[in-house]
């Protein structure tokens, strides 16, 4: 008898738990996917939720604009912070239907996001396109379509300590000669601060490599990088690897494997080298070091090709599987292309704005932004094709090998073989 009473009590609890559960489901409309679907056919006072995913440094500056947009359109805008593996997290979440409506990321993700059907093209008017720097528009264009609204452009440049090296070098040879002289005089410890490490660093060394005549991909008829023509092992690239070898540990000592991504900026900020090849992200640390500096383009080799850095463009993407696409498009195409948003994002994380008008306003207070922009004006937008993923590591290892004094032809051939192998599959 007692046991039965117990059973009844427990069942009652179960029923209670069930109803409680059901209630909470209804109380939070954003939690259940079915709910959003229902709201479209039976519009309520609230227009739903727009979810934006951003990296930590951009959540705060976006918040006021997101709230304003929400108030104007009667929706709730959530800006969520994603701090790690943003691209993979976005892809996985999108796939299973829990992704955002808008994603913020680098333009070189576009190829991979498109092949996974994760983002939609963004239609900008001609006037909007003209307001951006042409490099930025070129970068977010993939297969002839614009896939994101750009807001910041970043590229690497040569930052030099003007106390040690007052004049901007015209060529790499000049820079290395000056660096070696300063080292011989005991004024610096390193000729040049550029990360190499045990796995090489294709991103930072690319301008030097390009100036020496090296190339990663051939071009398609439309001028885009052509994944079918990998040129890492081409004669031009072999020559360029040879030049890197001359700059390496067995040569001028300008490229050294002991200088890594962790220590290259610190070393420059600490006055241990006169030249640094890095991007806008280095500036806060350089300023902390309290040295006098100037920013110019990475110089080319004497008689060489232009030293074109990679250009990266931070952009807003409209998620294909978002639940509120009309709002997402409104936000990306018509709202964040606004100057004030670009400026607020700049103030939170000083990377040169992609909007020309915003860049001009920023110029007065921060000449660095314009100098970086100037240094990257001939730059090459980082290839957004998914095949680029196959390049980084083999290229870096070939760089490391020649910097240590290895044979350029062998290193280039091995890299080409490895890249071909992984692309062929």
């Amino acid at each position, binding site marked *: 008898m007692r046991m039965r009473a117990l*059973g009844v009590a427990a069942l009652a609890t179960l029923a209670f738990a069930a109803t409680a559960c059901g209630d909470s489901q209804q109380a939070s409309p954003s939690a259940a996917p079915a709910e959003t679907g229902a709201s479209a056919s039976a519009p309520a006072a609230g227009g*739903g939720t727009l979810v934006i995913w951003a990296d930590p440094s951009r959540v705060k500056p976006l918040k006021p604009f997101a709230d304003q947009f929400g108030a104007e359109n009667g929706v709730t805008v959530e800006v969520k912070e994603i701090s790690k593996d943003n691209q993979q997290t976005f892809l996985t979440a999108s796939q299973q239907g829990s992704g955002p409506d808008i994603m913020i990321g680098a333009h070189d993700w576009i190829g991979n996001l498109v092949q996974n059907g994760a983002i939609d093209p963004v*239609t900008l008017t001609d006037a909007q396109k003209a307001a951006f720097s042409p490099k930025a528009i070129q970068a977010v264009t993939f297969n002839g379509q614009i896939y994101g609204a750009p807001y910041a452009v970043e590229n690497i440049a040569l930052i030099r300590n003007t106390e040690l090296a007052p004049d901007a070098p015209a060529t790499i040879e000049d820079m290395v000669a000056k660096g070696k002289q300063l080292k011989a005089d005991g004024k610096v410890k390193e000729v040049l601060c550029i990360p190499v490490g045990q796995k090489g660093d294709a991103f930072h060394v690319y301008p030097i490599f390009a100036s020496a005549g090296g190339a990663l991909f051939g071009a398609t008829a439309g001028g885009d990088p052509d994944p079918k023509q990998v040129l890492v092992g081409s004669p031009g690239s072999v020559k360029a690897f040879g030049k890197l070898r001359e700059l390496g540990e067995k040569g001028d000592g300008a490229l050294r494997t002991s200088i890594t991504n962790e220590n290259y900026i610190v070393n420059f900020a600490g006055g241990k080298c006169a030249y640094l090849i890095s991007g806008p992200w280095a500036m806060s640390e350089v300023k902390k070091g309290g040295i006098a500096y100037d920013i110019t383009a990475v110089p080319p080799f004497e008689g060489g090709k232009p030293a074109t850095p990679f250009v990266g463009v931070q952009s807003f993407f409209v998620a294909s599987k978002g639940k509120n696409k*009309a709002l997402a498009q409104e936000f990306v195409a018509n709202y964040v292309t606004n100057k004030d948003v670009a400026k607020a994002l700049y103030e939170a994380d000083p990377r040169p704005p992609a909007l020309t008008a915003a860049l001009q306003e920023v110029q007065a207070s921060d000449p660095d932004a314009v100098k970086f922009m100037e240094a990257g004006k001939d730059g090459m937008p980082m290839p957004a094709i998914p095949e680029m993923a196959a390049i980084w590591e083999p290229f870096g290892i070939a760089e490391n090998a020649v910097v240590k004094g*290895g044979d350029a032809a062998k290193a280039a051939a091995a890299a080409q073989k490895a890249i071909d192998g992984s692309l062929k599959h």
Partner: protein
Amino acid sequence: MALDVRREAAETARSPRPRRQITTAFVVSRIAVLAVAAAILLYAVPPLVAAGSWVSLGLLGAASAAIAYLYLTRRFVPAKYLVPGTVFLIAFQVFPVLYTVTTAFTNFGDGHRGDKAAAITAIETGSVRQTPGSPEYALTAALRGDRLVFLLVDPATKQVRVGDSSGLAPLAGARVGITGKVLSAPGLRVLKAPEAAARGQEITALAVPTGDGVIKANGLSRAVEGKAALLYDAGCDCVRGDGGPWTADESQGYFVNAGGEHLAQGWQVNVGLDNFARVLTNPTISGYFAGVLGWNLVFALASVLGTFALGMAVALALHHPRMRGTRVYRIVLILPYAMPAFAMLLVWRDMFNRDFGLINQLLGADIDWLGQVGTARLGVILVNLWLGFPYMFLVTTGALQAIPRELTEAAAIDGATPWKAFRRVTLPLLLVALTPLLISSFAYNFNNFNAIALTTDGGPFPADSPQVGGTDLLITYTFRLAFGAGGAQFGFAAAISVFIFTIVAVISAVAFRRTRRQEEIYA
């Protein structure tokens, strides 16, 4: 009848046992636990209903009922203890293993994440191009009756037109604001921003046909005329348009054309044993497999034996009865274990730097520690030794407490030297307790991804084979193959995991069998 007899027999057999007291705490805790379990199970109901998976819903209902019955009845006492463990075993062991194995037979990965329908949608939406020379309409959403219509204002001519799914028609008498938004129109109800936002999905879905393409909303305030360059045709199971026809190839999950090219967006298909075949036949895998496996075994063995030897030596030293200040020593020795391993690994990596690292500065040397195979291997083993010995020290200390001191004293009285006593008495007894831990430590170190990825990242790499480095373990090496060059290839990665799982399982099984024999001798 027979059944009744048996039950009576059982009843009589049980009767001498005292009845368990049912306390209030017992009742409350049982109700609480059951309520939580039921709440978790019920939480899964709405998504299942939304997805329409009735079989899963039925299974869920049956499982809930079974669990509720099991804990509300007095019978099935062993099952009461077994069920929670079994549920967790299924959820955290069996399911992931089965999922990994099934994934290994697919091409799941970048470019092949979704199903075919999703790929087709992505291909079609991605190919919509704005009709050259078409106006950038200012859009206002409005209702005619309760049907959604678009009010489109051509910015150049200020002409207002109304569009719905049947086409465009001129609209007279509309008042247009300065931004190009329509403020009011006869016979229509203009939607305010929040109202339009609430109908976002309808707005996205509405396509106004024009002669050549369709006008679709681009956000809530603009509309553009565009045309899809690629369209799926179910008749031929192909995509027609630019560069096509692109025919669906179900063996690789792509739309391919006659030239052998494929559209970027693919879908997930079953590829059979392809991934396994790729592991076995890919020259970059099979060619280096033996070398990597060899070093992998050396690394795991050196890590286990090194940490065990050092940890045990320290534990024995502190176990000595005349040792003083053991507590202080213990705290100091535990420190490497208490610090987050990944941070320590990064610190060690920087200490090994040739020009700026602490180690070369202390030694006054110029060794490129992580740049040469021999020193890099020595380096990662040393780092792993430093990270791992406190654990061995802890478990050995515990095991030593369980060995009676009388045994070693007796050995000493019998004339055994301390070394002999250790070798013949202490060590075998220790091993009986610790061998399973040593085996699990081996399995852990065999797949110690962090220890390599955060220090050398597999390097140094010989110039002629940029894919396999001197300190690469199978796990770091295959991680690079599966997630480095070709984006994420989950199917391939799963196939590799199956291979690694097999290797570790075989080694562990052999080791456990030997342990059992050893236990039979000493236990």
